[in-house]
């Protein structure tokens, strides 16, 4: 009862507890006593609730600095001192074991440098077209059509879409159309300066309202308003005008139109998927065609059949895309009321998705590849992970060295969290050294990377000094991340056992962990080895593949149509020299062709097949060593038959369901010509063997070869060596200068043009090779460090074994067995992964290699040899060492 009485007379416990928690020890009794006395009085006067409430308020009134527990200044100081001590000990540790410190720092630095370079690359790739302030409102109009089971996505659309959009689609603010004819050479002339320009783009005047392309001089409002205007970059202007002020100067376009320079362009940002050095109004091209130029009054503003323009719409708001898209799909189905044979599927692609996600027919230029970006990002993370694994492994492995220190610190009263803090500080210290080294490495790596990837990346320290801060934060994160496991592991040591010098490693957990880490490291580097071998052999395969035609010693001239009339003369003159085997005006083997819808006699228009059409001359078959499998080739001898005749390739014959013999004399027709309205009738006169005239990314297309003199000039030279080749080319130039002296002579080698198609893959291969080397190097560095450490640990054991008669070979096996087990295991794991990723990459190619076991044999041997180099040297050193020396080392 008394106890109870006492309890009820006391203020609520939780409040007292709270008070005692915050109040300083020397005051707590005196104050609390006073408060309880007051409580007792109030209890008498006003009851329990009143007293308790007032008690609480009073306790709260004491919640102020004078009553708080003092964190004594002395203990704060010790904290700082401890940190200083951590740094000192950490630094001494680094200096004492320079070898391991170097391995740690170099490995990490490489990992970090690669990571940062890759991050810069990924950032660059993903920032395409974002320089446009209105990027979220810009969309490219595209369509897809299906014909006879073939579907094709096209990013160019008919010109009259623009006025229709502006009239009927209220959400559209502006539309800009771009046009470029890559087969056509544009020449400009100012006084004596005369050049061919291939980065000319025709554009609507609104280009500056939609895109943020800037002018250094001139007014974006009306720069292209006049049909006879031209804007160009400073570099181009310099070529023509030298030091003169280019503004307002008149330049001659294709030897006839006079264009006034109305603006100087700032260089188009590299992160633009459209690029150009010169802009000309699209209206200029229209007027040129209307007034003739071989096209007889052709007006593209009225032509719905020709998909010739890249069209970008600027919507009034980003949200309007919903409504716009809906209408586009609905109205586009029957081709905006111009119901055609085909079903059309119109769509709008956001500007921000074009560069990385779009790879359709007629792209402005080869776009990036989101999968490649992901791939690089993964490599970047992997190499950083490998470097961190090394770090963790070496630190835990070397723990025995630190065991005595840890034991002593514990005996002296160090808490576990203090030890953890110490080791994390050490790890952060090492990472900071690595980051410093990495910044230097980046400066070395970036130029090489840029060269491989054809980029101009840099780390903009000056514009964005916060990058340094990010480095700091990153170093701190990696330091803590990589330091946490060793720290926990090291601080776990039992002091007595550690001090006794017994193995401080408790159980096998740590060794298992180390094995897992080393194995996963080698899985990664094996995987990259396999990848690089697959990529290399695919590239070799493509280079060496029999294309079915001979591309050697062929040069291609871009003549801009000026040879159309004089080609016969030109050709005859050339062929009279001993240097030229044949000439062709028309389709150039190895490049893209045109497509037409063909119908067979007696068929309805609906059954038309879309087939590639290649315009060729008399020499085409001979020049490119194509095989005739049936019928005849075009010849001057049967000129009339040739003019209306066509040849098919075997694929086309199959597409129509004929045999080669049946195909001969079949009658077909198609609609085409410069006005796209003329109907052509033709008869099959022969069948050519299939050849990879287009890229190896795609299957061989069904193709029609038609006799025509229209297109680029290709010339087959007769030359056995480089010297003869040079002579041949200068001979061709001599003839060219006589026939058309007002045009510059410019040519390309066909095999180089074709090789360019695979340039992207070539570059990718180079880059992966480079990074694979680094990954393998870092992994080996880790293995090397680990091996030397293990052997150092076993020096005494090896000495004793040698004394007892073990041979060098036996000791070699003994010390390196463990490592080779891990390497072999990781190799086995990487096989299925390698097959999976390799297949995925090869899918892009129509013609590809099989992944043979040889790939794995090679990579397996490679990785074992590399591992042997990393482990072997140290093992051998240990095995041949004199036991007298090793046993004496205490």
């Amino acid at each position, binding site marked *: 009862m008394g106890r109870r009485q006492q309890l009820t007379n*006391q203020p609520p416990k939780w409040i007292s507890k709270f008070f005692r928690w915050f109040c300083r020890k020397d005051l707590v009794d*005196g104050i609390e*006593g*006073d408060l*309880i*006395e007051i409580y007792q009085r109030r209890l008498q006067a006003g009851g329990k609730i009143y007293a308790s409430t007032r008690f609480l308020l009073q306790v709260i009134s004491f919640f*102020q600095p*004078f009553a708080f527990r003092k964190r004594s200044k002395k203990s704060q100081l010790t904290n700082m001192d401890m940190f200083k001590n951590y740094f000192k000990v950490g630094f001494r540790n680094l200096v004492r074991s320079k070898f391991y410190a170097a391995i740690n720092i170099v490995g990490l630095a490489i990992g970090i440098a690669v990571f940062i370079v890759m991050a810069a690359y990924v950032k660059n790739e993903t920032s395409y077209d974002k320089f446009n302030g209105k990027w979220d409102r810009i969309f490219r109009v595209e369509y897809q059509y299906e014909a006879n089971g073939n579907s094709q996505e096209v990013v160019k659309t008919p010109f009259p879409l623009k006025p229709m959009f502006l009239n009927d689609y209220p959400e559209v603010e502006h539309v800009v159309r771009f046009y470029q004819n890559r087969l056509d050479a544009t020449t400009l002339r100012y006084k004596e300066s005369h050049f061919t320009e291939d980065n000319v783009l025709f554009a609507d005047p609104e280009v500056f309202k939609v895109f943020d392309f800037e002018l250094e001089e001139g007014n974006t409002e009306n720069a292209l308003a006049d049909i006879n205007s031209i804007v160009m970059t400073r570099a181009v202007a310099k070529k023509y005008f030298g030091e003169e002020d280019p503004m307002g100067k008149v330049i001659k376009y294709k030897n006839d139109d006079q264009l006034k320079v109305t603006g100087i362009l700032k260089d188009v940002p590299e992160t633009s998927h459209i690029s150009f050095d010169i802009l000309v109004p699209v209206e200029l091209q229209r007027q040129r065609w209307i007034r003739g130029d071989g096209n007889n009054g052709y007006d593209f503003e009225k032509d719905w059949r020709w998909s010739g323009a890249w069209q970008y719409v600027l919507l009034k708001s980003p949200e309007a895309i919903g409504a716009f898209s809906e209408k586009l799909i609905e109205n586009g189905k029957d081709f905006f009321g111009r119901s055609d044979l085909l079903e059309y599927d119109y769509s709008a692609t956001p500007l921000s998705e074009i560069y990385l996600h779009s790879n359709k027919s007629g792209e402005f230029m080869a776009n990036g590849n989101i999968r490649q970006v992901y791939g690089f990002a993964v490599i970047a993370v992997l190499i950083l992970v490998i470097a961190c694994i090394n770090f963790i492994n070496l630190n835990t492995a070397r723990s025995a060295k630190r065991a005595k220190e840890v034991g002593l610190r514990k005996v002296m009263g160090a808490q576990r969290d203090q030890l953890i803090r110490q080791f994390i500080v050490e790890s952060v210290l090492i990472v900071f050294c690595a980051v410093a080294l990495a910044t230097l490495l980046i400066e070395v790596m970036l130029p090489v990377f840029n060269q491989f990837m054809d980029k101009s990346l840099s780390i903009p320290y000056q514009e964005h000094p916060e990058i340094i801060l990010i480095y700091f934060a990153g170093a701190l994160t990696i330091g803590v991340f990589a330091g946490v496991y060793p720290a926990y592991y090291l601080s776990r040591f039992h002091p007595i056992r550690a001090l006794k010098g017994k193995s401080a490693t408790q159980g096998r957990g740590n060794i298992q962990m180390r094995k897992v880490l080393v194995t996963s490291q080698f899985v990664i580097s094996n995987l990259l080895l396999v990848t690089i071998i697959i990529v290399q052999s695919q590239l070799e395969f493509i280079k060496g593949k029999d294309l079915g035609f001979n591309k050697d010693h062929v040069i291609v001239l871009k003549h801009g149509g000026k040879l159309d009339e004089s080609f016969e003369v030109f050709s005859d003159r050339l062929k009279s020299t001993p240097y030229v085997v044949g000439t062709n005006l028309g389709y150039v083997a190895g490049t893209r062709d045109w497509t037409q819808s063909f119908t067979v006699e007696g068929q309805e228009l609906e059954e038309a097949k879309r087939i590639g059409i290649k315009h060729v001359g008399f020499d085409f078959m001979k020049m490119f060593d194509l095989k005739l499998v049936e019928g005849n080739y075009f010849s001057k001898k049967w000129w009339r038959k040739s003019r209306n005749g066509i040849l098919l390739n075997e694929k086309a014959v199959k597409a129509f369901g004929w045999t080669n013999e049946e195909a001969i004399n079949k009658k077909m027709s198609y609609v085409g010509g410069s006005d796209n309205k003329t109907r052509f009738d033709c008869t099959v006169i022969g069948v050519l063997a299939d050849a990879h005239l287009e890229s190896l990314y795609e299957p061989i297309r069904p193709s029609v070869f038609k006799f025509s003199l229209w297109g680029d000039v290709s010339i087959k030279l007769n030359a056995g060596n480089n010297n003869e080749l040079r002579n041949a080319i200068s001979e061709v130039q001599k003839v060219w200068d006589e026939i058309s002296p007002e045009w510059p002579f410019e040519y390309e080698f066909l095999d180089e043009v074709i090789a360019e198609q695979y340039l992207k893959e070539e570059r990718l291969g180079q880059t992966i090779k480079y990074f694979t080397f680094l990954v393998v190097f870092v992994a080996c560095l880790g293995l090397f460090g680990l091996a030397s450490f293990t052997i150092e640990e076993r020096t005494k054991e090896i000495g004793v074994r040698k004394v007892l008669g073990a041979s060098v070979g036996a000791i070699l096996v003994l010390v390196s067995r463990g490592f080779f087990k891990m390497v072999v295991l990781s190799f086995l794991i990487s096989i299925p992964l390698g097959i999976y990723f390799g297949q995925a990459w090869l899918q892009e190619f129509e013609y590809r290699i099989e992944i043979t076991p040889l790939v794995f044999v090679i990579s397996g041997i490679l990785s074992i040899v590399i591992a042997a180099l990393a482990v072997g040297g140290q093992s051998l050193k240990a095995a041949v060492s004199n036991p007298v020396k090793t046993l004496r080392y205490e």
Partner: protein
Amino acid sequence: MKGTSLGEFEELVLLTVGILHDDAYGLAIKDQLEAQSKRSVMISSVHKVLVRLEDKGYLNSQMGGATAERGGRQKRLYELTAAGKKVLNRSRDLRNSMWEQVPKVVWEGGSN
């Protein structure tokens, strides 16, 4: 000079400690102050000033005299130190001398 100046409340608390002589602890000081000045005083303010005065060296304290109504907690008993007595004296002297300098006419006249 700064360390020697006393606030008004500080002076009152010091004097109260003097008045209570050997039973000067927080609550007793608060009660005495309220009785003398006829105004209510927060117990936390009293303790705050006591801590400050002890830091300044005007007060000394020791523990003693636990009672039942205090829940068995000891009192912290304060006493004036020599410095504390000195500062109180100085403060009274200052006042006295200033009082004497005020002309008599100030107290007596003032109606015109």
